[in-house]
């Protein structure tokens, strides 16, 4: 073990160096959001803001074209609706696939797993045409309805449900519990840790989603945060200080929450090895 300790100092040095690289984009963005427009245009650029200012934030929060509260609400609706739908269908069908066998159940399960291999670019064109037929373009439900069944979620929950003891389910049946009651009162509580992980991953996916919302939402006031951020950035391409402040306001608050819940997200990745 002595030998192991002897190469720790260089390890720390390399890790700290890498940490600077990993943190640089965040730090650079946050610092720029406190600089004035004149300072941003200065060449060579400054690192620390010379005249520390909150003006950029004030400009954004008072911008009538950028109703951040509305866009936060849109994004939150889409993310929470998806989390709710995914958790419900994944736990329910995970339980059914793990504990019941019915005609075609294996084939159905493999079909669902196989759909994970299909790139989003393949189904997005017909998916768009289906939403047109359902009159769900420019409707936030258009970002929820096509994602009701989540293959990854069903796979994850099936794995977890297999470990629920059959005796527990049998005992509930003896007590006369209805099948849905068993799912709700016996199965769901057992799945709580898995639900936390799946819920967070689902929230993250839909909060950060870009391609599908870009196709479905073309009206400004229906849009979600990532699309609004690119729109704002294109509108203010000569005012980087404003774009950076907008990035901080749009990206950082939820990133901070994700960082607090990181343990659960990391667990989901190590458990399944699936992105």
């Amino acid at each position: 073990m002595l030998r192991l300790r002897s190469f720790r100092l260089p390890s720390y040095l390399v890790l700290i160096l890498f940490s600077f690289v990993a943190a640089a984009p965040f730090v650079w963005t946050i610092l720029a959001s406190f600089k004035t427009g004149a300072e941003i245009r200065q060449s060579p650029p400054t690192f620390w803001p010379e005249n520390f200012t909150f003006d950029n934030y004030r400009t954004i929060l008072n911008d009538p074209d950028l109703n951040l509260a509305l866009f936060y609400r849109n994004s939150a609706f889409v993310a929470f609706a998806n989390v709710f739908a995914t958790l419900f269908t994944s736990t329910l069908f995970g339980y059914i696939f793990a504990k019941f066998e019915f005609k075609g159940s294996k084939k159905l399960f493999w079909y669902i797993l196989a759909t994970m291999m299909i790139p989003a670019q393949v189904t997005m064109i017909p998916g768009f045409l289906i939403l047109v037929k359902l009159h769900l373009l420019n409707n936030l439900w258009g970002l929820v309805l096509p994602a009701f069944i989540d293959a990854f979620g069903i796979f994850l929950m099936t794995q977890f449900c297999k470990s629920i003891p059959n005796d527990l389910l049998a005992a509930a049946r003896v007590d006369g519990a209805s099948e849905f009651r068993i799912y709700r009162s016996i199965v769901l509580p057992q799945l709580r840790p898995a639900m936390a992980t799946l819920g967070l991953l689902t929230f993250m996916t839909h909060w950060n989603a870009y391609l599908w919302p870009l196709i479905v939402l073309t009206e400004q006031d229906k849009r979600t945060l990532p699309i609004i951020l690119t729109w704002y950035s294109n509108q203010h391409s000569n005012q980087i200080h404003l774009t950076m402040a907008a990035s901080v306001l749009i990206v950082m608050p939820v990133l901070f929450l994700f960082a607090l819940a990181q343990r659960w997200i990391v667990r989901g990745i190590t458990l399944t090895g699936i992105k």
Partner: protein
Amino acid sequence: MSASSKIKTSDSKASSETVAKASSRRSSFLTGRKGAERRFVFGMVTPMVLYMAVFSVLPIIWAVALAFFDYSARRTGGPILGLGGENPFVGIENFQKMTDFSAEKPLEVRQFHLSLRTTLLFAFLVVPLNLAITLPLASLIESVHQRMRPLFRNLFFLPVLTSAVGVAIMWGFILSPQRGLLNALISKVVGETTIIAWTSDPSLTVLGIPVSLFAVIVAYLWQDLGYNLIIFIAALQGVPQSVKEAALIDGAKPWQLFRHVTIPLLKPTIMLASVLTMISAFQVFDLFQVMTNGGPNDQTRALSIDIYESAFRFQRMGWAAAVSVVLFLIVLVLSLVQSKLLRSDWEY
């Protein structure tokens, strides 16, 4: 009473699955306890199957069908899915066009060739670069004090949680010609003002690969390496301490330990992580669209950008569907490799 039920559960009399199967044969079809289970399963699975017919099976069939038509959503077309009529069936013409390497090939074919090359370059550069960073980084993190490990791991994982649009905008600013951090640092080192347009100068190439593509690769590596890092850290924790100690007692240097003990032991994980990284690299859209939007001069037009632009900007959905089928076939082959890797048994 011996309805040949396919539902398998345990009931009061039986706890093990085999006995449960036998007991289920004794129940009637839709009444009683077994009937309740059957009603529950069919009641839940039926709407799911109907839903999947519309939102999963239909889009897949539709996408493949579109690839054989000259389809645009602007034209009404035939009665079934708008195919036929003004959106005529063209057979394998879309796929034949893809193999047109002549000088007079149409623009969309030229762009397809360019984007296929870009995506292949991107994926085959990203995977080795990713491994070259994440493997040593994972073992470095494992080599420091236990209390410090989560700190570093969490920091390197933070970009994974960040929205790709945010990543693209942050890196766009770092690489900005006049006001970017990178050019400022280079200017400091070189001693004179250096202005390099990393993402927008089409004349900048290294070994025939556009620099703008490297810019996207750097941003992607920065965002994505947390995934493999976590997978490798988990795998490293599975390597028995005794193996490492034995090597050290035999006089192995840290580098030799990494090269001749850690890497071979992690080989299955490395293979799997490579395939997963490659599959996602083939589908990257957000970073390309926001950082370069395919430019300059279509130099970073990835397949995903090509499909999106063809379908929704130029309304050539049949052609776009054909390109998406090509992308699907590439990902399918990689996925089959992945499942083969998953199935094989590995032991230390």
